[in-house]
């Protein structure tokens, strides 16, 4: 082979390899991002005219939101004045004992950008109409859990705030726990709260 041809071939091979190195994998949507597929596994649905992205956009632009303080006695009967170890809670199912402690409407500002990232230490809440149409949702930390060097500690009973759209049609809030199955998350339903339309609870 002539030297010039050899150089040209080498350049071509280098170019192909370099391109391959850069474009090795087309990134897929993150496994950890909440998607329409996750919602499809729940009894709730987005409005027909809306994607999850559009719901996100709507939620970001709302001028006000409602703030609901929730109490969750996740492990009834367990002490809630100290952290529980994994061994103490092993085999105990999470309870659906969610209760509304307070509810404030017309709080200034949007309920926030949708936090899409799912994880074993997160909770997903979906606020929906009576007919199950999703009007607001988000992913939030499960503040019950404290993972320290692989040891998981749990607070049995907590109270926390959620921010959601101040939509008078919202009649229920459902809570889900993302569960990792090999390479995907599934939303496991924990419980429901029914809200009164009057604004109180």
């Amino acid at each position: 082979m002539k030297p010039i041809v050899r150089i040209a071939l080498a350049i071509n091979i280098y170019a192909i390899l370099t391109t391959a190195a850069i474009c090795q994998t087309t990134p897929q949507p993150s496994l950890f991002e909440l998607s329409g597929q996750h919602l499809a596994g729940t009894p709730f649905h987005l409005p027909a005219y809306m994607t999850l992205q559009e719901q996100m956009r709507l939620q970001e632009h709302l001028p006000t939101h409602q703030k609901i303080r929730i109490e969750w006695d996740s492990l009834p009967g367990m002490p809630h004045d100290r952290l529980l170890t994994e061994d103490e809670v092993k085999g105990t199912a999470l309870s659906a004992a969610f209760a509304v402690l307070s509810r404030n409407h017309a709080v200034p500002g949007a309920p926030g950008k949708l936090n899409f990232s799912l994880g074993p230490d997160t909770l997903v809440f979906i606020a929906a109409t009576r007919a199950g149409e999703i009007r607001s949702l988000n992913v939030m930390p499960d503040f019950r859990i404290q993972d320290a060097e692989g040891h998981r500690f749990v607070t049995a009973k907590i109270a926390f705030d959620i921010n959601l759209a101040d939509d008078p049609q919202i009649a229920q809030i459902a809570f889900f726990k993302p569960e990792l199955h090999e390479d995907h998350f599934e939303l496991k339903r924990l419980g429901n709260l029914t809200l009164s339309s009057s604004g109180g609870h």
Partner: protein
Amino acid sequence: MQPQRLLMFGMLIVSLATRICIAQDGAVIGASVVLQNGPTDHRAQIVFVGDGYTQADLDNGTYARQVSYALSSSGLFNISPFLEYQQYFNAVRIDVVSRDSGATHYDTNPIIQRDTYFQSAYGCSQTTVVPRAICANTTRVVDTVNAYAPYNGGHARMIVLLVNDAEFGGAGFLGVAVVYGAFGTFDAPAHEIGHSFPALKDEYFNVPGDACHLDSYGVNVWNSPYGTPWSYWISPFTPLPTTTTQNGVPGAYLGANHCATGLYRATFSSKMGADLSRPFEQVNTEQFVYWIYSKAILFPDGIGHPSSSDVSAVEGTSVSFSPALPDPNSAYMQYTWNLDGNVVDRGQGNGHFSYSVNTASLGLGTHTVEVEIADLTPLVINPSYQSPSMTSANHPVAWNLNVTCDSHSTTSDYYVSYTDSSGATCTDTHEVTDYYDCSGTYVGSDDEVVDTQCTRQCWADGGAYEVGYDWVRDDGANCTTYYWEQDYSCSDGSSYTNDLGQGDTTCYYMTGGGGGGGGGGGGDGCYDYDYYYDECMDEFMY
């Protein structure tokens, strides 16, 4: 952050809340803004909360110093990607008094109990002591932050609980990072922040006392070397599993999250691993940047320039547009400028930050100028992260540009002189504005007096006359000097007297100290010292 800037923020500390919540184990004093790079609802907000600080600890500045250091250029902002994105952060410090100083230690024998507001405890529990870990009442931390640094819709929040203890320790719980306050560098706090916000897993293993769970994996730790969430970072020439000990090579390295086998980490050594001094490396850094963007509405900060979305300009003039951004100097920010839906400019960096249009090239009426912004930082290569979160897609920046026709006018001056009723000579300056419509046809004029200048006329009321002024000379002689004066009346009713100069005098000045023959008088009996009239010469002598 530059020291000057820190100082400025320090001086501008603003109390956000004055409410004091008294609790048995302490009290919340209040909150202060300690870093303000932009509007609260367009930034990631770091909220520092302290535990185990007594009033004395707060008074001697221990807690405030630790927070200041954390926000200094030696602290968090010395670490990528906080270094590159420091303009995207605000920070608030919440001061909390605890009854006791320090933290509970379940990791000592005997156990040390401390009564602190957030119940921070080394070892986490009495029954299962976890070395180095600090647990706390994180729901109380979150409630305190909600009360004193309320979430207002658009911002991301990064809560850091500083525990007033000298022993190395911490924990990164989702939503709250717990860090010992006496950190020497910010590496350990940054590691915990990595757990709490982008939900990064530990990348170390083989540490006695740690618990391995093979079902605990995430964005930076996976249960197989294949199909990892970060696979797009891995070169096809990198073997899987990856065995090189070279730093900065994304791959799938055996051992992670407290498990020596069964779990794989993204790089050989990163800040989420055993060597906290290492950088976060590519995969973790990408997660951080994405976390910031996915939680906060970072840009635009507002409409930018012009500051109104409705802009009016006369045909033929130029109008310049630019968006409001946390860091307009970023070389990786891409701007796509659209005029009436057509791309007119696209590029990265400062050179494309603004767009100027000459309205002469546009038709009359309303046009739309829109800029699409995208952060193309090489720290993020996953396009599903970049769009829409790292773009302005959900928050378009647009202006309505109304181009009006050039219904121009011309102005000219002319002058009118006259004598007014007082007899003064006056001149009025008239400004004439001639108006023309868009086609150039004359449509009318305005004539306005814009200035009047009058010169008054004055006349002598009579002839000059002498006025005598009496004075006493040094030797006691009474003297009178006469001056010529003349009275005048003027057209505006005023009058004045004109001084025409000195006339006769009955005696002249003399000096007091010359003595006979002094000062060169020369025996003529006259005095010619400085500043005095010489009686003989009748003139000033110098």
